[in-house]
């Protein structure tokens, strides 16, 4: 199975899902014109990855801003990660936010509540 790598743009996040290490990175801004088109390959990749039965998955999510439909897809990604957990994979979600970005921190907390996955909410200094 191949890694999933999608270059980030001004409207779409960078995606780097590594089969070997189990590190799934989602970084940047997510305001695609067509969220379905952008996220469908991501969800399909996760569906296929379940069959690899990885020991551990660390999802590193560092988003500056995302639109409403992206928020639905992030929820879908977390639901897929829940499937991994049910299948016996150790799953950790690292949710990154800029230290002054209260909104993004609270959003991470909301996703933690609704997904039932272990989260680490991590702040970092503005560049």
């Amino acid at each position, binding site marked *: 199975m191949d890694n999933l790598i999608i270059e980030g743009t001004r409207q779409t996040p960078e995606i780097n899902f590594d089969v070997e290490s189990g590190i799934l990175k989602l970084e940047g801004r997510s305001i695609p014109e067509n969220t379905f088109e952008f996220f469908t390959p991501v969800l399909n990749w996760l569906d296929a990855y379940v069959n690899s039965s990885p020991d551990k998955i660390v999802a590193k999510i560092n988003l500056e801003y995302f639109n409403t439909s992206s*928020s639905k897809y992030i929820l879908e990604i977390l639901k897929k990660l829940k499937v991994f957990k049910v299948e016996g994979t150790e799953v950790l979600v690292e949710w990154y936010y800029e230290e002054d970005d209260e*909104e993004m921190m609270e*959003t991470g907390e*909301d996703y933690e509540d*609704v997904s039932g996955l272990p989260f680490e909410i991590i702040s970092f200094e503005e560049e």
Partner: protein
Amino acid sequence: MGGQSIYQNELDNLEQSKEFLKRNDYSQMELQLEFKKLVENYEELVDQVKIITKISDRLQKKLNKTNDALESSNNQLAELNNQLNETIDQLTEAKIGRRASTIVLFIAIGLFVISEVLLEPIIDDMFKDNAFVGLALKLVVAILIKPGEDFANKYMLKQARKKQMEEQKEKRADKKVNKKVKKKRKIL
């Protein structure tokens, strides 16, 4: 909604329930199971709507905050720009004032020399008995120095502003051309 929708799963579930309703041969047990499935899906959808709405509102707030910060920065920038323009104007005025004073001083010296060398002998010849005429002429020249300086100052300032406006016009025209070029590049 067609085949491509972010709510594809939910639409599929709805379609399945509709198909089930079209059947007339379901048992009580099947009906109960279908209803249970429908309630579960509905519950999940409500949870999703709640969380998505909450997140969306919060990110809207973040966007508003960013817009406010941007507006405030723009205002500060505009204020600083005004201050800069005022300072530039003051500097230009001072520079032009100094230049006008120098020019008028040279003209006054010129007039003084002319009156001493050329006019004085003529006046002395014409008004031998009256020494005040020559003095009055010099007095007129001296009195004219200040209004002359003001006039020169105003004229030069007017010219400088005209030049400034023309430069700004050229800059705006250049900007427009650059924008058009960028647009064309984007299209290509």
